[in-house]
């Protein structure tokens, strides 16, 4: 099978709620909440730790059953793992017994795709995230930032129309985060997939997103949806703009109201 380019997907969340456990041990993790994401949007789920944003992302991916409500990806109800999305999990899915290239190919091999047909695409992807020359290295030979960039290539090599990214920059230092943020923005601007980006960094959400869903502390609900009206591409200088600063202040005010700031 040869590489294909999937079209960006729409996502719709209707009255979704998630409870873990039962009886006295029941934990209300998320919802109920509604959200509509148009094809090609970059939407951040922003909230404090433990507010259920990763839970929502896993429910969109069909990797976690919801307790109530409905989720649609491209108008198809999600009732099983979605194989047409690209996912980056909080912890790395790079395996130590494969090289960087081998790890990217693992995504294809698990899907039963012919890796030879994707050779040029893998080269392009690794080049675009500045991993040329590291194709044959093992993940443990790379820095944390390089590992995350390799994981990003692994998540998107099959050209998904939707990307679900669960705090992909959470464990990186500030300078590396900046670099990968730029790579991510570049990738989104070139291909325009629909992106759901889970983060607890307000600045990161403003810099990358078209819209930000502010989630309350647990049980998390989507409380505010904020349009980010800043010009593209957004480099570091955007952080000094009045629009960025006022957006930041507005979100900080919301979190202050929740008592988490």
């Amino acid at each position: 099978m040869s590489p294909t380019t999937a079209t960006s997907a729409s996502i719709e969340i209707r009255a979704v709620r998630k409870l873990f456990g039962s009886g006295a041990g029941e934990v209300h993790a998320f919802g109920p909440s509604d959200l509509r994401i148009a094809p090609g949007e970059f939407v951040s789920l922003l909230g404090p730790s433990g507010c259920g944003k990763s839970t929502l992302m896993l429910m969109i991916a069909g990797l976690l059953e919801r307790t109530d409500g409905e989720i649609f990806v491209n108008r198809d109800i999600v009732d099983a793992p979605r194989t047409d999305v690209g996912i980056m999990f909080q912890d790395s899915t790079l395996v130590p017994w494969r090289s960087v290239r081998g790890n990217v190919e693992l995504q294809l091999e698990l899907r039963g795709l012919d890796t030879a047909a994707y050779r040029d695409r893998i080269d392009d992807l690794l080049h675009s995230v500045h991993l040329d020359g590291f194709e044959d290295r093992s993940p443990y030979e790379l820095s944390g930032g390089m590992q995350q960039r390799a994981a990003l290539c692994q998540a998107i090599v099959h050209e998904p129309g939707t990307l679900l990214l669960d705090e992909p920059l959470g464990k990186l230092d500030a300078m590396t985060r900046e670099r990968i943020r730029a790579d991510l923005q570049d990738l989104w601007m070139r291909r325009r997939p629909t992106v759901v980006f889970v983060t607890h960094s307000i600045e990161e959400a403003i810099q990358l997103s078209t819209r930000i869903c502010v989630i309350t502390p647990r049980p998390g609900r989507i409380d505010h949806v904020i349009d980010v009206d800043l010009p593209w591409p957004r480099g570091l200088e955007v952080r000094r703009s009045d629009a960025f600063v006022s957006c930041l202040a507005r979100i900080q005010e919301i979190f202050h109201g929740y008592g988490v700031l």
Partner: protein
Amino acid sequence: MAMASSESPAAAGVRWLMRWFSRSWLFLVFFAAFFISWELLVDWLEVPRYILPKPSTIVIKSSADLDRLVYYTWVTGTETVLGYAAAIVLAVPLGLAIAFSRFLRQTIYPFFVSIEMTPKIAFAPLFISWLGFGLLPKVIIVFLVCFFPIVLNAILAFGSLSEELTRFCRATGAGAWRSFVKVRLPAAMPQCFVGFKYAAINATVGATIAEFIGSDQGLGFYIQIVTGNMRPDLAFAGIFFLTVLGLAIFGLVTLTERLLIPWHISVRRAA
């Protein structure tokens, strides 16, 4: 064709030996000091030869019995390798089955955990009374000694794939077999090798004790007979051959581990 600049196999061998020596000289000095002290102390304290012979006496006297020692090493080695291999062949698939079957986890698994607490060697007299002095009861004892650590580690290995990798496999739509071959099996190998190595250490112990209890050949039998004949020099020779056998088996398992999982942190650190 070899490049003109590449070194010959002999030169590479010498270089490897030099490197090994530079890493291991302290260990070699310690061993030499141990045996020299033993030799001198036996003389100095005038310890009778039938209590504790000198290392030089052990070497000289046992060399006359070398054929028997080599043959008995082969016998004990055969019992050990057969029992160990049978344990791996049966325990790994069973561990895999238990890791994936709720029914087996609720039935066989607790049974195995309780059996693991029983000293398997206590079964040796029973097996020898049922099956005689031949090869089979020894192989069964070695099998029992090796089987439980391997199966328990295999259950742990196959049941411990990270949540992220499990979800990653599911999100690709890969079937159980493809996920197993590409992800679950290689991820389980390090923990499996913990069981293999623990069992390898105990395998020769099982064979030796089984031979103590009832046998007419093998190193355990040899050590028992020569000790009864007041020949500790030969008993020490038997112990030395047992040590070499144990080291050879453990070394082979470790080598296999290095070849199969060179990427694992324990192997990388050892290298």
